[in-house]
């Protein structure tokens, strides 16, 4: 069956006047829904960003003060008792194993 040649311009016109605007509006609406945030959200985001920056500055000041007071405060921050007393139970069990069963190893 041969394709009727008279239909080609019709398809062209359809594509140009319906397909193209459809595509454009489709992308425009999608762009609008994804990209925009409301003015309130924008103000909120601005405030949060500003707050984060200010808190960052304050935190840096405090860290500098603590650093001047005690240069290795980060390691002292943890409980010294906990840091010094490591868990030796594993090693004790291993030693006990070795003393109890020397014959099996050899």
């Amino acid at each position, binding site marked *: 069956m041969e394709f009727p040649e008279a239909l080609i311009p019709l398809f062209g016109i359809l594509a140009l006047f319906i397909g193209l605007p459809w595509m454009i509006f489709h992308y425009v609406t999608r762009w609008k829904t994804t990209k925009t*945030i409301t003015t309130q959200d924008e103000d909120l985001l601005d405030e949060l*960003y500003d707050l*984060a*920056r200010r808190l960052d500055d304050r*935190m840096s000041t405090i860290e500098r003060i603590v650093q001047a007071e005690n240069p290795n405060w*980060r390691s*002292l*921050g943890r409980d*010294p008792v906990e840091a010094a007393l490591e868990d030796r139970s594993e090693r004790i069990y291993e030693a006990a194993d070795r003393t109890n069963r020397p014959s099996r190893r050899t």
Partner: protein
Amino acid sequence: MSAPRTKFYLDKQSAKWSGVCAGIADYTGMDVTLVRIAVVLLTFLSGPWTLPAYWITAWMAPRKPIELYQQDPDQKKFWQGVRRNPHAMARDVRSRFRELDRRLADVETYVTSSHSRLAQEIEQLR
């Protein structure tokens, strides 16, 4: 505070002609020179439709409010990110707060533990 930051503005301060290219660069965070070169290339390659587009944009778009010129580079970058992807920037702010929380926790642990150690030493001296 009042001027919306997610709109397109003409950047008159770094404008060559009407500030459309500078505005695009400011909006997206691209380099101004690159935007200008791209527009000129587009004009030569695909016909002179960019000229009316330029004029219409220059005529329709508002000028950048004066307070937005006073943003520092960090802020500028942040708002360019918001225009690109608001959610990612919201997550970015959240991560900043988490980082702050962690640092504050470190300092808090140090201060409280040093207080308790001091109390212990005073007890031993008695």
